[in-house]
């Protein structure tokens, strides 16, 4: 699956003036991928439904990574899940953003000494906004999304450009933790 005319954007190009029109449309209609990894996913349904309505900000849930803008990493990530998250992140179409929920993505949380859970999400995929808490309150989640929209307005949400520029560093970290990023499924091979 190749992308059409895949040239890398540099940080300077993304700073251009006409990019601001695109930013207006992108920040007012964010589509999130409902990939809820850990126990932090319990805070998403109140944000999506009538209690703290997310749709008035323009956000909506979408089913597949190719259609989504934002990947929500909610909670802890074991090595198995990390491989699938990287696989999913590389399928999304650009520009794309990552929001890390909960303390487990920041520094390991309550599972900092576990043999199966990674400690810091920043080493493997670039993260734009962290929402701290265990779990964060639903208002904090909405605050995090509004912060992401503000970052898009100021042109500082450049995680995907950093991924292109520092691809070797990210790849080395991924291989050290996960091996190859290819999903081997015992039942289909």
């Amino acid at each position, binding site marked *: 699956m190749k992308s059409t005319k895949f040239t890398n954007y540099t940080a300077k190009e993304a700073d251009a003036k006409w990019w601001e029109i695109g930013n207006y449309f992108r920040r007012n209609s964010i589509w999130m991928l409902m990939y809820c990894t850990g126990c932090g996913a319990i805070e998403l349904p109140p944000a999506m439904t009538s209690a703290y309505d997310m749709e008035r900000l323009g956000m909506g849930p979408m089913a597949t990574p190719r259609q989504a803008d934002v990947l929500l990493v909610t909670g802890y990530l074991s090595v198995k899940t990390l491989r699938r998250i990287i696989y999913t992140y590389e399928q999304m179409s*650009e520009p794309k953003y990552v929001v890390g929920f909960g303390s487990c993505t920041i520094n390991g949380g309550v599972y900092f000494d576990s043999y199966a859970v990674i400690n810091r999400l920043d080493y493997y995929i670039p993260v734009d906004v962290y929402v701290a808490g265990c779990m964060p309150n639903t208002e904090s989640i909405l605050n995090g999304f509004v912060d992401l929209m503000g970052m898009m307005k100021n042109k500082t949400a450049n995680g995907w450009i950093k991924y292109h520029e520092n691809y070797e560093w990210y790849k080395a970290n991924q291989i050290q933790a996960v091996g190859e990023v290819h999903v081997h499924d015992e039942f289909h091979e």
Partner: protein
Amino acid sequence: MLNILAGIGIAFFGFVLQTSVAGFNRKVTGRIQKRYGPVWYQEFRDIFKLFTKRSVTHGWIFDFGIIMALGGTIGTAMFIPLTTHTLAFAGYDNFFIYVYLIAVGMLGMAMSASGSGNPLASIGVMRALTTMLAYEVPFMIVALTIINLTGTSSLTEIALMQQGQFNWFAIALPLGGIVGFISLMGMLGKKPFETYVAPAEIASGPMVEYGGKQLGMLLVMHELSVFIEVSLFMYLFLGGAESIIMFLIKYVLIYTFANMISSVNGRMKIDQVVLFFYKWPLIMAVTQAVIAIYLGWVI
């Protein structure tokens, strides 16, 4: 030449109208669910956001199918009469032109969804075509009844024959009106007939591998096809429109009513959809045809 420009103008007007009405209906759905919805121009923002993303392609069939579907739908929308006197191509508003050209849109989408190589897309396309098979039969029976009663198959003539003191076909042929409305909901892909999209079940069906610009074109095609279908229903059953104001009022009312019904229903499975359409709507359509043509009981 002027006709083509007028046609493109009508298609553009239909796109703007439907996108605004769809955004307004998201607010209506939100209010039904006791929350605020988005702003009324939210769908515009969605579509333009999709056009600014970079997309991934899977080969030329994938791209070409989308362009064919979009072109077919724009071509169909150019023939829609806005009022009974405002047409792009006078004399070319036959009912069967729309039935024929809508198939081009579906075919294009099916082609590009199969070209993406994802098995979920094939499942979604199969479900979409099965749903089409289900709702077309009662709808065609009622439409053919109307054509037989009026003796002509031109939309504007059918609309003109319904003028008078509430002489609409939705009231003159009551069973036919109900069947037409249920088939309209099947055509629009609203719940309970939403099996071909099914967001959480088959990961949005045919749209599973689209991202960025192709999804934007697909949404534009969807909006235009909704415009075509609602206008078709309006001309067949509700007497068309004499002026633009009546057109807008009737359009908004039909779509909002369909949306309100769909927001309180769940989603049926595909075999339930086919069984449903082949039971009561088919019986009502055939009864209506028999009453209207052979017995002549028209209100």
